[in-house]
């Protein structure tokens, strides 16, 4: 007697999403090795991948890559479903929301803008989760300026890296086209 079998067919698009998420996971894990002066202050290099994917493949794929990155890197770093995971998820959700809202900005705004705005949203989302869930204490606001300054700095750096990667992209490289429709 055969139990029911659920077969998941991963198509070309799924493979490509997984590949890009793997890049982001790699960056997350690598930067976790760097010491940080304050828990939560880190470069967020994985956001470079999110920004690139957003530009090339649109919001839907970027959401997939970003959320897969959050889940997979927390599994690797051992914080799955721990507070750090929820903070990471809150930050990623907030920055994806920000990216979704700022998608229709005129083209005078480049990757640097999106990166900075997403970094601010990220830290806003995280501090929101911390305040509502972990430390509902007014003293938390004392840390806000530090986090905001870090968000500005790292948002700028990541945005410049993203812009450089986009500008330096060889015209010979054919990006895999992804059908983003039915699933």
């Amino acid at each position, binding site marked *: 007697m055969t139990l029911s079998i659920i077969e998941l067919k991963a198509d070309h698009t799924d493979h490509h999403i997984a590949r890009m998420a793997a890049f982001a996971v790699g960056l997350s894990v690598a930067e976790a090795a760097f010491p940080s002066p304050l828990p939560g202050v880190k470069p967020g290099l994985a956001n470079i991948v999110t920004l690139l994917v957003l530009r090339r493949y649109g919001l839907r794929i970027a959401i997939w890559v970003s959320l897969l990155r959050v889940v997979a890197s927390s599994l690797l770093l051992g914080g799955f479903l721990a507070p750090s995971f929820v903070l990471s998820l809150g930050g990623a959700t907030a920055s994806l929301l920000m990216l979704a809202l700022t998608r229709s900005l005129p083209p*005078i705004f480049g990757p*640097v803008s999106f990166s900075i705005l997403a970094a601010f949203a990220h830290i806003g989302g995280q501090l929101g989760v911390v305040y509502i869930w972990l430390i509902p204490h007014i003293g938390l606001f*004392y840390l806000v*300026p530090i986090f905001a300054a870090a968000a500005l700095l790292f948002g700028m750096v990541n945005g410049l890296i993203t812009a450089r990667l986009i500008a330096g992209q060889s015209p010979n490289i054919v990006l895999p086209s992804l059908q983003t429709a039915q699933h």
Partner: protein
Amino acid sequence: MSLIKSGDWLVMFSGLFAVIWLFATLWQGGTGDKVIIRSGGTVVAEASLLHDQVYNIKGPLGISLVAIHDHRARVASDPSPRQYCVKQGWLSRPGEAAICLPNQVSVEIAGNKKLYDSLNY
């Protein structure tokens, strides 16, 4: 194509101003404007930091001198053996305190909003 577009400068400078504004509003904490002096746990004097003056506070060991000068306050002298509260130096920010345990005298700065000298979570 330059890496930084014109709109990016706008975002960067707005971000910079936002960060400066956050530092200015969230980190000032208000300057202390009042000093509360206690002896044996009861408030014996509440004084404004605006007026320079010296208080003589009597405790079980003797007299502690509390001096207010230039918007700051300190324990100027105290009969306690280890002089911790004197070594605390000048206090100016809300929540700062000097406590002379042996002589049961404490000096605390109060501001318009109460800040915290320690946090637990």
